[in-house]
């Protein structure tokens, strides 16, 4: 046991003194979280630029314009109808609002109870649903005041509604990044392993009374400890900066962090079994890391991927680790039931460990 702990301590020291390893496993996922978090937050305080076309010119139309201008975060660009649509097509404005000729007259008629309600044309791009929502929300707010005859509204939409939508994006992302960083910790173990073999350190250790299970055990211990450190940092950053709270069981989170770290460490041993040099271990790690990163649903939801990529996504372990963490941490919708996630990770662990046990060379 003494040897196991001493070796674990030595491994951790080597790791913390290796800046590249610390960056890829600890800093890289954190940079991602903060970056994406800021992007999602930026889209939260939506600023809208609206093309404003007043084809009516009545006092009622001017009053309507004033209503829009009074809203926070709204900029109006006054132009004619064709110009406004062109501006929207090239992205100069987010949406176009047209007050048609006769607006003032029909509004008066409607107020006196005779005739159809006045109409305001709202042009939006349905492929940008979030923006579309924001435009309709602004239009609804202003027209609500008009519909009340200019009196202040009795109920106003709460700005928190917008923020909740954004939290969904970041709360999808935080557990995904935890899964991603656990993958990094596991598979990146291949590089020091191959380096130690190349330097004949593993051979030298083989001539001491140290047993192989102690050598592997110290690696497992060290990698699981790092995975827990990551989990604590990522959960803390998610909670403090972005308000993503762990809603599920902390014990389940810990269980999946441990299982994930071990499964990916086993994959790291498989890489180290086939890579002869430190450079080839580096290459193989990247070759596995990047596809896994993008196909696991950590960045893109799996059901939005093309069919054939979905098949790949269903095979890779990160999909199930990220999915399980999302379910347990933020109550995310399940891609697969938790027991399936656990079973798939365990399967990868057993298969990879089996391959490594046969193929891994110590000298």
């Amino acid at each position, binding site marked *: 046991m003494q040897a196991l*702990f001493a*070796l674990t301590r*030595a491994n951790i020291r*080597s790791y913390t*003194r*290796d800046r590249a390893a610390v960056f890829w496993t600890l800093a890289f996922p954190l940079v991602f979280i903060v970056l994406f978090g800021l992007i999602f937050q930026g889209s939260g305080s939506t600023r809208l630029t609206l093309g404003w076309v007043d084809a009516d010119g009545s006092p009622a139309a001017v009053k309507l314009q004033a209503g829009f201008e009074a809203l926070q975060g709204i900029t109006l660009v006054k132009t004619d109808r064709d110009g406004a649509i062109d501006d929207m097509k090239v992205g100069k404005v987010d949406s176009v609002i047209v007050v048609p000729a006769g607006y003032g007259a029909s509004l008066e008629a409607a107020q006196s109870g005779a005739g159809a309600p006045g109409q305001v044309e709202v042009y939006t791009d349905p492929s940008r649903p979030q923006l579309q929502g924001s435009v309709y929300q602004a239009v609804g707010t202003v027209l609500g005041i008009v519909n009340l005859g200019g009196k202040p509204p009795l109920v106003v939409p709460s700005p928190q509604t917008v923020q909740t939508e954004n939290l969904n994006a970041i709360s999808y992302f935080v557990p995904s990044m935890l899964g991603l960083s656990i993958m990094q910790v596991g598979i990146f173990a291949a590089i020091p392993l191959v380096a130690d073999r190349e330097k004949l*350190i593993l051979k*030298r250790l083989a*001539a001491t*009374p140290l047993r192989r299970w102690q050598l592997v055990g110290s690696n497992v211990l060290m990698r699981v400890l790092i995975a827990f450190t990551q989990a604590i940092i990522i959960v803390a950053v998610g909670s403090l900066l972005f308000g993503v709270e762990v809603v599920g069981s902390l014990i389940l989170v810990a269980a999946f962090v441990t299982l994930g770290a071990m499964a990916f460490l086993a994959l790291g041993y498989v890489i180290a079994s086939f890579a002869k040099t430190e450079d080839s271990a580096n290459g193989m790690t990247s070759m596995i890391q990047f596809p896994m990163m993008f196909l696991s649903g950590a960045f893109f939801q799996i059901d939005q991927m093309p069919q054939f990529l979905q098949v790949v996504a269903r095979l890779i372990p990160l999909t199930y680790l990220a999915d399980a963490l999302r379910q347990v941490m933020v109550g995310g919708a399940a891609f697969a039931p938790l027991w399936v996630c656990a079973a798939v990770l365990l399967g990868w662990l057993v298969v990879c460990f089996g391959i490594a046990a046969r193929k891994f060379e110590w000298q």
Partner: protein
Amino acid sequence: MSASVATGSVIEVRGLVKRYGDLVAVDGIDFDVAPGEVFGLLGPNGAGKTTTVEILEGLRVPDGGRAIVLGLDVASGAEAIKPRIGISLQTASMYPKLTVVEIIDLFRSFYTTSRPTDELIEMLELGERRNARTKDLSGGQRQRLAVALALVNDPELVFLDEPTTGLDPAARRSLWDLIKGLKARGRSVLLTTHYMEEAEVLCDRLAIMDHGSILEHGTVDSLIARRFQERTVRFDTSEALPDPALADLPAVSTVKHDADATLLYTTDVAATVGALLALAESRGIEPQNLGIRRATLEDVFLDLTGRALRD
């Protein structure tokens, strides 16, 4: 244990064979190492020294023959042997980001009994570098760390594979003293080297290896005496001492010239030197740079293989 008591050897090798594909690295060798002895395997690179040592350390499995270390067969008893031996590999390298002290402490944790870290650091003169990371050590310092790690468990038997390769002369001499110190404490040492001077200074007995076979073994003196009964008297060539006159001196068998020196091969150094000095005095000169040299292991190796050791 019973086997080692019975044979009295710390290492007993019989008919040991190791093949790598078609290459026969070790070709049926036999030797014994007695307790408290420094035993050398001398030979050029590729002779099979390292393979032999690594079989004895339990790092390689032999294809034939038997190797008994500390009374235990390496084929079945490797795990019981490991706590009692210390090794230093030919290519010494360690965790690059750990310091000297950290690595010694790590290795101490592998053994139930171990020498204090500071004692090892002092023995190997690594004091000034104790907190240096191993990647920042010089080649010689790394070599000394490797030897320190071989001594961590105060082993009964130490394997040192080319321990002084890459050391400067001063460091080499202090490592020689260390090995003599091990012997003085009753430890046994198996060392490989291709420095014949090292073998002559350190080894009680040695085996000369080439192409996987042991050509001859014994003490340094017996190896030399077995082939070279004559000694060599050398001095700077002088016109006052022509070859025919020298050939007539007592006990001289041959006169040879090597660059500026004249070499007299003799079976009786005292008679030859006395007559040489008398002859020189009668001609009014004094032989310059007069010296007596016996044959060396280098000469033995040359005689055995027809090649110089360092080729």
